[in-house]
């Protein structure tokens, strides 16, 4: 690994440097009352990873139950709760805040050359709102949990005897945390860019977070009112969604997916940003098609608002509406393909350095492409009628959410780990963990594509005997996947104690966060940076 040639150091080591943000203040209060975006980002990171563990345990329990048809470890009602909690925890407590609120909070102001986000108090408040939402979710889990599926479809959610209201309130509250983060990032991006940083000199991670923030701000309020109406429906029996008193359950689906489809892009677009940064850094090359990638994030954000009906092809919506939604769904594939092709083009003739973040990125390219292309199958009405609500759908969105977002998130975590913690993790263990997770992931979900095409419906407690081998294969895959993440956790946590000290720029990155110390001081930069070139421009070879 000798090909790393960090740019000539500007600051000599004998010059005293300001203390890192960890050392700038100490004590519990310095964390609980902090307005520093980096500390808030770290609190988010710890919370998100904790819930990732919780959601992961639910997933492993679900897969263990499905090892055999009929009863394996839990009864059918518990199984309903387990898959609902897996979905709700992973979507609302993990994936949505994962990249923006944790890595975004940590990195966005650094990449912009700012001292902090525009509204630091709002930032801290968004974290506490998140904690409050999480507490409601935990309350729901211990008081009977939810068995409606994470989508809360009526009439399940209006008739279920489980703790639906507290979970709905939890998601309602979590939504505000998401809105505050999005609002903050938009204002920060507009106002606090370093001198010289025009919009087209922003790193693509910033572009991605900007697009995501727009979706968060515009879509989440609609989820909020939907959930409020659902609570009103359960408490007051208003007759808007509940068919027993004249309500329309399809109206609920429209409301729900008007948020939840854009929410899919809240989950994946920040991942795109991470991938763009990592690929350019480890291919030692300016990103190919910078403007096209930046604009494709924005166009995904816009088109993403117009495709929600593709979740409802079998709900009885009109055929014309279905055709329009199907067509618009195909349109999303264009900006997405622009991104993938530009990433591949960036690799072409790059001098590729294979380190753990790059392995996750290559894994992402493979998995996300499968996830994206199978989305086109499902966006085709005639095929969707057969595959709707089968394991094919489950496999599709796991390839996008898990193979896409989570691989990008964990890749980004490795990429910025030295910057955040000031430590290097064990490269070998990182590589092995990545490979294990990649193999485990494909075992778990590739088999589910096959199960889906053979007619295995999602969310079923039991199944025909003929599906048993593939189910067992998938369950074993999930254990391998779990093992991979366990190794990742060991790799990262052990680095905190025994990792080598990280230099300012261990990967040879070109964006601004690599121009300050690792970890950065309280207000990020010793001297406010001035930007004179594009984010991925590399200095020409020395003469």
């Amino acid at each position, binding site marked *: 690994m000798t090909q790393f040639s960090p740019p000539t150091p500007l600051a000599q080591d004998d010059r005293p440097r300001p203390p890192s943000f960890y050392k700038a203040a100490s004590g519990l209060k310095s964390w609980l009352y902090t307005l520093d975006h980096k500390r808030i980002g770290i609190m988010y990171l710890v919370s998100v990873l904790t819930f990732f563990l919780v959601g992961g345990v639910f997933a492993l329990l679900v897969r263990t139950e499905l090892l055999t048809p009929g009863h394996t470890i839990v009864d059918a009602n518990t199984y309903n709760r387990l898959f609902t909690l897996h979905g709700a925890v992973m979507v609302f407590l993990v994936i949505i805040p994962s990249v923006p609120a944790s890595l975004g909070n940590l990195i966005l102001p650094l990449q912009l050359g700012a001292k902090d986000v525009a509204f630091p108090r709002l930032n801290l408040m968004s974290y506490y709102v998140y904690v409050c939402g999480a507490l409601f979710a935990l309350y729901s889990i211990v008081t009977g949990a939810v068995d409606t599926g994470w989508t809360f479809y009526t009439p399940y959610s209006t008739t279920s005897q489980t703790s639906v209201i507290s979970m709905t309130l939890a998601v309602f509250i979590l939504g505000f945390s998401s809105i505050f983060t999005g609002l903050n990032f938009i204002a920060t991006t507009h106002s606090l860019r370093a001198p010289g940083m025009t919009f087209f000199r922003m790193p693509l991670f910033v572009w991605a977070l900007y697009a995501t923030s727009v979706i968060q*701000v515009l879509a*989440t309020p609609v989820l*909020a009112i939907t959930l409020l109406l659902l609570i009103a429906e359960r408490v007051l029996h208003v007759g808007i969604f509940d068919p027993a008193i004249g309500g329309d359950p399809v109206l609920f689906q429209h409301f729900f997916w008007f948020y939840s489809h854009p929410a899919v892009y809240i989950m994946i677009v920040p991942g795109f940003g991470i991938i763009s940064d990592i690929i350019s850094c480890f291919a030692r090359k300016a990103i190919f098609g910078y403007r096209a990638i930046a604009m494709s994030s924005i166009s995904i954000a816009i088109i993403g608002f117009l495709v929600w009906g593709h979740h409802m092809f079998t709900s009885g919506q009109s055929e014309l509406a279905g055709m329009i939604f199907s067509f618009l769904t195909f349109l999303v594939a264009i900006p997405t393909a622009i991104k993938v092709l530009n990433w591949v083009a960036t690799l072409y003739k790059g001098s590729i350095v294979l380190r753990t973040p790059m392995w996750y990125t290559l894994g992402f390219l493979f998995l996300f492409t499968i996830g994206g292309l199978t989305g086109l199958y499902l966006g085709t009405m005639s095929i969707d009628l057969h595959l709707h609500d089968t394991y094919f759908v489950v496999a599709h969105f796991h390839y996008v959410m898990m193979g896409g977002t989570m691989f990008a998130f964990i890749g980004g975590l490795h990429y910025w780990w030295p910057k955040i913690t000031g430590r290097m993790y064990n490269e070998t263990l990182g590589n092995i963990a990545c490979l294990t997770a990649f193999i485990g992931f494909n075992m778990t979900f590739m088999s589910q594509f096959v199960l889906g095409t053979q007619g295995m419906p999602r969310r079923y407690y039991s199944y025909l005997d003929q599906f048993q081998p593939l189910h067992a294969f998938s369950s074993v895959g999930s254990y391998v996947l779990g093992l991979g993440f366990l190794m990742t956790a060991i790799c990262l946590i052990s680095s905190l104690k025994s990792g080598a000290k990280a230099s300012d720029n261990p990967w040879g990155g070109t964006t601004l966060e690599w121009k300050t110390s690792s970890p950065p001081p309280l207000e990020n930069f010793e001297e406010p940076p001035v930007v004179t070139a594009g984010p991925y421009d590399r200095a020409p070879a020395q003469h």
Partner: protein
Amino acid sequence: MSTATLSNNREYHQAHHFPTARLESETSKLGMWIFLATEILLFSGLFMAYSAYRYTHAEMFKAAHQLLDWKLGAVNTMVLIFSSLTMALGVRSAQTNKRGATIGYLLVTLLCACAFLVVKYFEYSHKLHVGTLPGGEPGHWFSYTYKGLEGYEQPWTFFGCYFLMTGLHGLHVVIGMIAILWAMFRSIRGDFHSKYYFPVELVGLYWHLVDLIWIYLFPLLYLVG
């Protein structure tokens, strides 16, 4: 942020991470506009639900809305429009260093908000009394029990829309009142002057939105036709 360093000559009042006070003010206003967009989208769900049921149950909506008193709604509309005017004048006096006038205008705005809520209280208690309520399932205190709309399908859904829309709006009025009180308190303390008054402006923006939403709610609920 807002209580950050206030230099002696009261010229600047900026949080440490903004290079200029002007940028802080501009950014805060941008943030408030984004927030107002989220508020409109929050209400949009209710407007959609209203539209869907007004479309499918047009006759019921027409019959049920006649149980609302449009005169009370009109009075409240006037009160809120007037309060928007006093709010705007309050912002203007903060900008021109007229502290007493700022406090006075904010107080009038606050009183208008109280008047609005008093009228709403009488409307709500009347509905509780006659049973024009949102509950579609009999046997609860909030169940629809009114006799007189027989022959119309699920009239409780109209009153569900009414209570949810005006209730959520009423909640915004209360939050607006807290914000106005906060701005008054800071005016009395003497925080604002012609170079630093954007917090009053933010409260004003929010209050105008609260009024604007009511201006849509009034015809939709009271003047169905």
